């Protein structure tokens, strides 16, 4: 384990669901991850980009945006620590980013190589099960938030 990976493991350990992992699993994930500092307004990826990384926000705030013709870029969600985004890259269907990600303020993210994560999960089903379970939770809560946004509950009653 080199310094960078030790640092990565230390950061990962701060995230609640990583505490569940055994040391060897943590090391495997650290070996396929990088830490990345982002500056305010920095674009991490655009809609349409190849899906390459799963991201975890350690500090700062990332906005997910979709471009709508005539309306511009709409911010549909912001990701706060210790939430993650870009999860669809782990079980890809579209193989392209369906939203863009921009840093709102300075921050620090963990970038996990999605393809390598898939391989690692295939090789070690114990680790794979934990990762997929966690992703399922994330997706479920995202879905709930999206549904509540869809209900437009603050809309003016006459509109």
């Amino acid at each position: 384990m080199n310094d960078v990976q030790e640092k990565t493991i230390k950061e990962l350990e701060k995230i609640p669901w990583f505490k569940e992992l055994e040391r060897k699993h943590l090391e495997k994930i650290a070996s396929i991850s990088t830490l990345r500092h982002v500056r305010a307004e920095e674009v991490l990826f655009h809609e349409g980009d190849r899906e390459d990384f799963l991201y975890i926000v350690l500090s700062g705030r990332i906005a997910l945006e979709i471009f709508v013709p005539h309306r511009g870029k709409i911010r549909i969600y912001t990701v706060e620590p210790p939430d993650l985004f870009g999860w669809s890259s782990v079980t890809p269907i579209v193989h392209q980013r369906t939203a863009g990600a921009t840093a709102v303020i300075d921050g620090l993210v963990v970038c996990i190589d999605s393809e390598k994560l898939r391989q690692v999960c295939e090789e070690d089903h114990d680790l794979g099960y934990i990762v997929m379970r966690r992703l399922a939770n994330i997706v479920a809560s995202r879905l709930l938030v999206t549904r509540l946004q869809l209900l437009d509950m603050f809309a003016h009653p006459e509109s």
Partner: protein
Amino acid sequence: MVAQQIARPVAIHPDHLLQPQWAEVLSITHEINDVSTYWIKFTDPAIQKAYTFQPGQFNMIYMPGFGESAISICSDPNDHTKIGHSVRFVGNVTNAIGRLKVGDTVGLRGPFGTYWPVKELEGKDVLIACGGIGLPPLRPAIYHILRNREKYGKVILLYGARTPADLMYTNEFDEWRKANIDVEITVDRGDSNWSGRVGVVPMWFYQFRIDPRKTAVLTCGPEIMIRFVIYEALARRVPLESIFVSLERNMKCGQGSCGHCQLGPYFICKDGPVFRFDALQPFFNVEEF
């Protein structure tokens, strides 16, 4: 809430049903697109002097020819010179209120209803989760907490609106932050000029660690939002008795007589609008009840 001592409303006429006292519009604050705050004072100085309210209570505002509307009081209970009502323009009566000018007269009866139990919450952490037009009824409670800050533990305000343009009272947030209230804002959707959060109020329970043994949750807003805030609070083991909700129903008399505002056994105007959730639970989720 049955245990509260509700003082007899000052601004009513005990011998003549529904007869209002009269009040003058002192000033009007345009808040957001369809909401303005009306600052009023009773024309009879004796009534103005005697008038007091608890945070969470409401007045019935009367527009002759149109009718009455129940509006929560959104001003500081300690300020006896004027009373504030943030009004959303959605129907006949509220649109008539929207045509008022400074100096005009309105009828007023009140205050009515149960209130946020700010005294009982001393010593606890307080999580206020609200959205849209749900913030005005909570603002008097916030003012009370500000004035007695040392009596409370952690205080968090989670406030959401549809878009950044729909956020109310934004010029006060910094002052509240300075007084050690954690003010967290979110909108349903934003544009690239918005550097704040985009999401919904209930999801913040994922962000903030709360101690269910000493946290009280106060919530007000669209009933959907209230429902999901409660789900999240209960999932984190906040006891039902520590969750307080303010509800809204069609009100006509404000005094538990005309029947309109009933939800199950409760008259929202007299047994509410503020409820402790354990009392509400059997009836709250019944569809169309």
